[in-house]
């Protein structure tokens, strides 16, 4: 009960939507990047909004002793991105937005190489290098231990080395 009350207060349970929005705002850039990375064909903003709605609905279950707000929100976002990816909606739009600057050639080469990685390795690379998450946050997203993230990243880098050599 104590933790529920504390968590509820932390996420603005008693104060309403505005406080909740203020509470999640610092985490929105990472949530949006994670959605874009894990569900590239989906509507990124819709995935984020759905994740926020889920987080709002489950806010009384957030317990800061079990993990940071960032990790909690990112895990929810990853879950929503997975659902969006399964639907492969490619819905009108917003995912089609193009924003400067264009990707340099090296980025394109790496993107090609990433497509050849096993799913978990690619996810680790996406979270850590592209979304910019910490190892702990990546572990929360992948639902595994931090040590597993580190070893998965090492395996992925080893696998990428010969693939990228082909692009140089």
């Amino acid at each position, binding site marked *: 009960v104590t933790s529920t009350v504390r968590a509820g207060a932390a996420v603005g349970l008693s104060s309403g939507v505005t406080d909740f929005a203020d509470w999640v705002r610092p985490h929105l850039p990472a949530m949006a990047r994670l959605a874009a990375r894990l569900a590239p064909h989906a509507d990124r903003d819709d995935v984020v909004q759905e994740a926020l709605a889920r987080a709002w609905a489950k806010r009384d279950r957030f317990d800061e002793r079990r993990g940071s707000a960032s990790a909690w929100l990112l895990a929810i976002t990853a879950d929503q991105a997975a659902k969006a990816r399964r639907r492969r909606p490619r819905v*009108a739009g917003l995912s*089609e937005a193009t924003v400067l600057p264009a990707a340099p050639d090296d980025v394109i080469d*790496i993107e090609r190489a990433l497509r050849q990685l096993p799913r978990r390795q690619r996810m680790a690379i996406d979270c850590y290098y592209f979304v910019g998450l910490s190892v702990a946050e990546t572990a929360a997203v992948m639902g595994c231990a931090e040590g597993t993230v580190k070893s998965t990243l090492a395996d992925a880098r080893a696998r990428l080395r010969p693939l*990228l050599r082909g692009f140089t």
Partner: protein
Amino acid sequence: MIDIEGRLASAGESWRAAQPGPPEPDPDRLDSRRHNRWPMAAAAAAVALVIAGTVLVLRSSPRLVTPVDPSTRPSATGSPVVSRPPAALVVRDGDTVEATGIVRAEPGNPIYFCSPFGASVGDQPACTAAIGLPATGVDLNRLTHREEHSGAVFGRAWLRGVLRDGAIDVIAQAPPREEPGPWHLPEVLKTTPCPPPGGGWRGSIDNDAIQQYVEARASRFNGIGISRPAPGVEVIVVGVSAGDVPAAQNELRAKFGPNICAVIVAYTAAAQRRARTAVEQLMRDGEYWIQGIGCACGFTPVIVQVTMLNQRSYDLLQRIGFDQLELWVWLKPVP
């Protein structure tokens, strides 16, 4: 030996820098969970949309594409901002301008003022000469959301100033104002713009199959989206750009099931593709303050995110056609 670590880090940084800013939390979507009033909201929407649906049916005709006067058209993104015609957004040297944005102050460099809906590098906003303007007279002590990254101070403010030689001479400063960004779901996807079929919305739909079907018939269809009339229920909304809307809906439902809602749209796929390609070319040229481009294609015009609309950019965009474009301009002249 390939520096995999370095290349991944560098590729990640480039990718992050190209990402648009995140969306703001949508209070309506949160609110619907707070009061658990989805079914009520859905029912209310359905009533309203039955009426709209009737209008659509009556208006449906073989030729549905109608030019839209951008000076009277409401924002296709549902933005509550009162839109001004593009000509009223053009700025010239000596104009007083205003905006809410990000201020970046770094020792040894000019202070820059940038759109808050730009790219970011990591958690740090990207605010450089490419996407912002130098600003003089900013009171750094009055910035909100202040943070420091690598010696640079970032903060937010509403600024009003005089535009001189590509820089802003600040004459007024206040806390940031809430302003909607350029990228929103169109109104038509926020609700389900069709009454449910006889047996109600049911089952799921093969999105890939319908996507392929619609794309293969781009002369008739433009736009496909998902609306959610109730928790766990998804309805595919398909834009019909030419032909009879009820007939198109019957055709799609016969092939893909009942959870299809066909609506008239004012933009054809071919016209949107042309407009988009032309704007992308301007964006690549990098001289016209065009920061982003996107659309909920079919349901919205091509949305162009512009940092500042000068006469040259205006002329080029006008040539592409304001009937196909919606401009989201950040730095606006004071009327």
